[in-house]
């Protein structure tokens, strides 16, 4: 294995995993710290960062073509339609809260 291969095949994924592990630590630490209204938001934000690391390094979006990147983003984009418009109903309802 050449030095380049070592970096490419082993070192980079390990670095990414370290980032993921850090994320797990942070999110658990924050969760155990105590109640806070932003808890789910922070936990989800950390999960989203972890997902981004995984998608970029493990799933090779760093090397992917614009087309593939667009396909990767499209699911999230369309999911946002579902969330935005259904919550446009819920958040403006007098019921429940």
């Amino acid at each position, binding site marked *: 294995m050449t030095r380049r291969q070592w970096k*490419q*095949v082993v070192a980079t*994924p390990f670095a990414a995993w370290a980032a993921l*592990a850090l994320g797990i630590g942070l999110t658990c630490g924050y969760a*155990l710290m105590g109640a806070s209204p932003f808890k789910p938001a922070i*936990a*989800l934000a950390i999960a989203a960062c972890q997902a981004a690391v995984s998608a970029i390094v493990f799933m090779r979006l760093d090397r992917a073509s614009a087309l593939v990147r667009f396909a990767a983003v499209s699911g999230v984009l369309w*999911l946002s339609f579902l969330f935005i418009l259904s919550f446009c109903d819920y958040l403006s309802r007098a019921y429940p809260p």
Partner: protein
Amino acid sequence: MSQTGVTVREPWPDARREETGLQFAMWVFLATEVLFFGALICTYAVNRWAHPAAVREAGRHAAFAYGLANTVILTLSGLSMAIADRAVKEQLGALAKACLWITLALGTAFVVIKALEYYKDISDNLWPGPDFALRGAGARPFWSFYWVATGVHAIHLTIGLGVVARLLVFAHRGSLVRRVPSMTISTLYWEFVDIVWLFLFALIYLVGRT
């Protein structure tokens, strides 16, 4: 038809195009999966919005230790799968094979731990049937989400184990390094299943912690 010993299948003009095509197709499929799990998470979000306290209370009963263990295991398996993927592309067959074995082992460990957790949940009466342990609006929908989401995720993961096993068969036949497209799309699938878990971990195991 072949370049550097790589087999090109029917409609494709060359191997490079085939790999790009399959990679793109897999990403399109993963977009589908995002919406599949996303719709489920939408039900969670509505429930959380309607009954924040009940969801927090219900989440307290989720087995945090099992969830954390599985999260660590799954991210490790994601790492080994990624190394296998990169190794195949660098023609490092032996390393790839070893990593695939590790992935398979970690994936199996995940399923086993999940099964143990299910056993514990059922003995704690957390299946929202007649003997359900929790009261209050929103608790049952939370646990319904738990069972559906982790169940669907476990099925995905089991399929992933099959996919990894298929790659191992190639590895034993020595043809793995020529199966770049298969390796690429299998990795994409496996990593996606990991990502889903990271969100489920946040939604199920972390909401009830204090």
